[in-house]
């Protein structure tokens, strides 16, 4: 519900606004927005109209129907006077007792609070004196513990309000940016460096300690939990004004961090997988094979040349996953970092893991690392949300039910549509992932052979995508007599990379419209919903055909 980047108030905010319950500033913001936005003014008018109807209903219906009190209202003054008399007549002891009871009842509310406050004050006093020392000591121990651990790499996720990226960090990883890191990470790196916070290994006690040590004025807080310590440092100086580091209680390993910068940028860093000891990592191609135990770290130290994994290596891995169908929903991530391609996944079944390992075993410069943890809530939106038909049906759904011959058949029909929607959405996600792995600059470095392989994978996805869009169009066409409108013509300009995001957005819009049409969501319910859905499907088909044409020509 956004046009030209406008952020419309929610209907809850509008109701709060109408009722005068918004804070002054928020109220001014809404008022300012309403002056500019016709759509929200209409929304507001509808809320006010509903409120007027409520008032009218009460006046016309309820007030007229609610019975009058069976007796005239009593004269309250004599009753109040009687209360006075009763109170006056009471024995002095009774009044004292009442007063004591009142006093007794009230302290039961505030005495515990007072005790708690005193305890908190004592605790705060103690913590205010101790944390600075404790923090320095804790960090010193954590740095020592990190130094004593075997050298290795690990995967971390960095999230900001607008982006997230996954990085491989550790001593084996060169400072140069990996292919999986987007160009936008440059801005973050600059921010980290300006704050004197290590970008090379930001989720570490060492980085935190280095930043903290150079602060002239700082305030520390330490929270101790059974399984972790949380260190929170606030300062007025520098670009980074607040930082939190969570350390595992068992081994003092940094597992989570939050950084609040002066420009209000909030960065959350979390560990994605365990440390990969150097010895577990494969020896990169190009290293002397006489000593298979020699790690690439050793090779770097010895000054031996290290062959870096290429986009071709990454593509070869993706091709294997594609042939296994593991690029269509399995929570598998492929990252090219350092000298290798890292294939990782969380919550993959044992059989599937073995299948993937077997196929990738022969490949050099590839590390496979699956975690047994259940899949976390995906931060990106690659997994299509599960849609189910809700129990409520509006007039549109009722009409479709009628055409299909009943509720049961309608539900069966909706399930079929959602299945094909899921299928084309999974292809859209796969194409998007390919575009993220192989932007124009990377593709230009690839060999002709690799580019052909990449084109073949794209072709496969887009063919299946079109197939499922066509099935959906037929399914919807069987229950709606609507002609698509505003369908754009084919054009073959631009790169396949440039066509990917519009295709993805068009697919997601169509998915939303289909969900609304079939009664699974109320996001876009409107009279012209059938026409919009049919047109959206037709536009999606044209968009996909454009993609196919451009992809084939490159």
């Amino acid at each position, binding site marked *: 519900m956004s046009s030209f980047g406008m952020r419309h108030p929610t*209907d809850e905010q509008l109701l709060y606004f109408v009722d005068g319950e918004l804070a002054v500033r928020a109220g001014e913001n809404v008022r300012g927005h309403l002056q500019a936005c016709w759509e929200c003014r209409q929304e507001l008018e509808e809320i006010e109209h*509903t409120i007027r109807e*409520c008032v009218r209903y009460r006046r016309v219906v309820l007030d007229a129907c609610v019975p009058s009190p069976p007796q005239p209202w009593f004269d309250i003054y004599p009753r109040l006077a009687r209360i006075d008399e009763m109170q006056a007549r009471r024995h002095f002891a009774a009044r004292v007792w009442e007063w004591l009871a009142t006093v007794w009842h009230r302290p039961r509310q505030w005495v515990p609070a007072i005790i708690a406050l005193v305890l908190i004050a004592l605790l705060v006093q103690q913590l205010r004196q101790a944390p600075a020392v404790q923090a320095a000591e804790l960090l010193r121990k954590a740095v020592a513990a990190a130094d004593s651990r075997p050298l290795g790499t690990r995967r971390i996720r960095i999230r900001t309000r607008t982006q997230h990226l996954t990085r491989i960090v550790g001593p084996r990883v060169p400072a140069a940016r990996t292919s999986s890191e987007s160009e936008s990470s440059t801005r973050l790196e600059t921010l980290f460096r300006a704050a004197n916070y290590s970008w090379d290994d930001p989720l570490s006690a060492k980085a935190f300690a280095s930043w903290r040590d150079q602060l002239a004025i700082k305030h520390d807080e330490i929270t101790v939990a059974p399984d972790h310590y949380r260190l929170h440092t606030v300062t007025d100086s520098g670009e980074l004004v607040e930082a939190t580091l969570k350390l595992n209680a068992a081994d003092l390993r940094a597992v989570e961090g939050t950084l609040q910068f002066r420009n209000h940028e909030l960065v959350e860093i979390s560990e994605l997988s365990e440390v990969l000891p150097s010895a577990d990592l494969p020896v990169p191609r190009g290293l002397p094979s006489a000593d298979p135990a020699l790690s690439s770290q050793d090779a770097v130290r010895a000054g031996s040349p290290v062959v870096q994994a290429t986009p071709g290596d990454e593509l070869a891995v993706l091709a294997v996953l594609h042939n296994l169908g593991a690029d269509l929903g399995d929570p598998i991530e492929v990252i090219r970092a350092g000298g290798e391609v890292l294939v990782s996944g969380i919550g993959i079944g044992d059989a599937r893991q073995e299948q993937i390992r077997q196929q990738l075993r022969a490949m050099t410069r590839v590390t496979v690392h699956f975690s047994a943890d259940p899949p976390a809530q995906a931060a990106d939106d690659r997994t299509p949300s599960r849609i189910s038909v809700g129990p409520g049906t509006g007039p549109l759904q009722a009409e479709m039910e009628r055409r299909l011959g009943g509720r049961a058949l309608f539900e069966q029909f909706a399930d079929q549509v959602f299945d094909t929607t899921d299928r084309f959405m999974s292809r859209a996600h796969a194409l998007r992932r390919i575009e993220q792995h192989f932007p124009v600059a990377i593709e230009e470095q690839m060999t002709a052979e690799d580019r052909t392989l990449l084109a073949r994978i794209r072709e496969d996805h887009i063919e299946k995508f079109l197939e499922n869009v066509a099935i959906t169009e037929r399914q919807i066409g069987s229950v709606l007599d609507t002609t698509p409108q505003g369908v754009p013509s084919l054009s073959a300009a631009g790169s396949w990379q440039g066509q990917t995001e519009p295709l993805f957005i068009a697919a997601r819009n169509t998915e939303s419209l289909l969900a609304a049409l079939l009664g699974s969501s109320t996001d876009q319910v409107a009279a012209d919903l059938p026409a919009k859905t049919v047109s959206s499907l037709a536009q999606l088909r044209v968009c996909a055909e454009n993609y196919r044409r451009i992809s084939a020509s490159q």
Partner: protein
Amino acid sequence: MFSDSLLEKLTGALASAETRSLLQDEVAQLFEQMRDGVFRYVLSLGLRPPQAQETTQEVFLRLYAALKRSEPIQNRRAWVVRVAHNLALKVRAQQTAQSPFAAELEARFPDTGLNPEQGLLERERLHLFHRAMESLSTQQRRCLDLRLEGLRYPEIASVLGISPSAVGEFLRRAIVRLRKAAHE
């Protein structure tokens, strides 16, 4: 003529009478303003009219007694409705054998004074709106009733023992449900 001590006693008694009178006036004024709304509200909680009236009157006597005991009551309006709410639920619980009051509204939509065709349309609209009102959940309906009585969100929250944001959410959902009926 009067000794100093007698004069002091008289002045104290007058001051006390004046204080009492002021407090009585305040409660009596509040009773005047709020009794119909409170009566209507406790009826909506399922009390029969005689019990509803008795409960309403009782609440204001309790308010006076509480004020006399110097209990800290920051918002008298909210206090009255909260006590009425609790008292009504207690009374209702003791009278489970009785069926609660339910105005048979559908059979009693009043004559709107319009011509027959307009009157029919108007009755149809009211009927639809009534149906939508009936479809609200208990909490939505209570929040709406109290809002219609002029209570603010924090006051409603204190009456129902929920948070002000929950009040906002119940009202929002109620408005969403009623909106369709209001626009037909």
